[in-house]
């Protein structure tokens, strides 16, 4: 079965979404020519050009990062363009993969519910919503990283069994949320400032470390 990938990351081909979708499709596809990939950032303002692709597709893998607690605005623009197809996508299968830079997957729950509702509106068939926390560094991590191997395996098992393996779906969440001991450790680590090391490195490299707490829009008498 052909896999149609819609990559909704505003970072396009340089995105973590691209890295993650490659892993899933590597596991799922027997050959690369069964894959069609669209980067939504390249279609901004002309999403109607993708309607035919949706009408002709069978299995969609729609991936994007969490932006301010839901989809990036441009992904919503794409979704809005699908309005003429509302109720008309019977039999078409939808896999969503949403991910966030926050370490915990819990931030994705509201968006997951919306995507389930969206599939209902389109009358499509929901295969599942894959959710992953802690994805921000994905494009810098080695191919053999466990998370990536699990995604590849998830794709492979989907091809073999026609459904998303529940155990692997849990694994690719990375971390559901912090609680108990892990929360205590997180608070301690956060206090040490160790979690800010990478940000501070970038701030120093760009010569703006001293300006990091700037409040450019604050009105004095507000």
């Amino acid at each position, binding site marked *: 079965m052909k896999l149609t990938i819609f990559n909704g*990351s*505003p*970072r396009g081909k340089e995105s973590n979404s691209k890295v993650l979708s490659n892993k899933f499709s590597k596991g799922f596809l027997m050959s690369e020519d069964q894959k069609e990939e669209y980067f939504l*950032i390249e279609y*901004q303002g002309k999403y109607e050009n993708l309607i035919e692709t949706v009408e002709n597709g069978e299995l969609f893998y729609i991936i994007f*990062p969490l*932006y*301010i*607690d*839901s*989809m*990036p*605005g*441009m992904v*919503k*623009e794409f*979704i*809005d363009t*699908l*309005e003429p197809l*509302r109720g008309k996508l019977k039999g078409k299968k939808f896999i969503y993969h949403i991910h966030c830079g*926050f*370490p*915990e997957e*819990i*931030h994705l*729950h*509201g*968006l997951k*519910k*919306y995507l389930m*509702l*969206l599939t209902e*509106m389109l009358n499509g068939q929901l295969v599942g919503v894959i959710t992953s926390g802690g994805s921000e560094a994905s494009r810098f991590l080695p191919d053999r990283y466990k998370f990536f191997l699990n995604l590849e395996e998830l794709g492979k098992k989907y091809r073999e069994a026609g459904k998303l393996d529940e155990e692997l779906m849990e694994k690719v969440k990375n971390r559901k*949320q*912090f*609680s108990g001991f892990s*929360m205590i450790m*997180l*608070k301690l680590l*956060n206090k040490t400032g160790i*979690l*800010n090391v990478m*940000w501070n490195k*970038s*701030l120093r490299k*760009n010569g*703006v470390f001293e*300006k*990091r*707490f*700037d*409040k*450019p*829009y*604050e*009105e004095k008498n*507000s």
Partner: protein
Amino acid sequence: MKITIINGNPYKDDFDDFLLNLNNSFEMKKQDCETLLLRDMKIKQCIGCFGCWVKKPGECLFEDDTVILRKKVINSDLVLYASPFKMGFISSILKKALDKHLPLLMPYFSIRNGEVHHMKRYTKYPKVGILIKDDEEVNEKNLEITKKIFKKVAINMVSEMVLFETTRRGYEEVSNEIDNI
């Protein structure tokens, strides 16, 4: 109380009239209120470059009209995000505007409500209100999902959601409810 209404209506219709009446009702009560009409503003998609965190702290590198938006938002006591539903959720222009709120936060983590969020940049953040146009697109399910998402948005914006309403209630009722916040 300083109120900013963010009008995320993509097309001119009676929802604009509702918001205009609401705005006027605050002015009648000598409240400081202003409406930003997003569809007349140039809003680029946030591309997640994090330049607002590590290159020009607090400001977006890509100039568009969201500079005004961020200024208004951070200096308000209440921001009312207003939108009709399309495909069961807020308009894409309102979502793009929300994406451009990122410079209002720090890159560093802080723990709020038992979850990791971004640390605040400013001393004070506005309270958050949501107003959805009541039409055939609105139902219990999509309202509940939107409410859940905006509760999170408010936590992320170091704030709280104090109002979640549809235009099923008249503008005067909504205005009075905001007075009591």
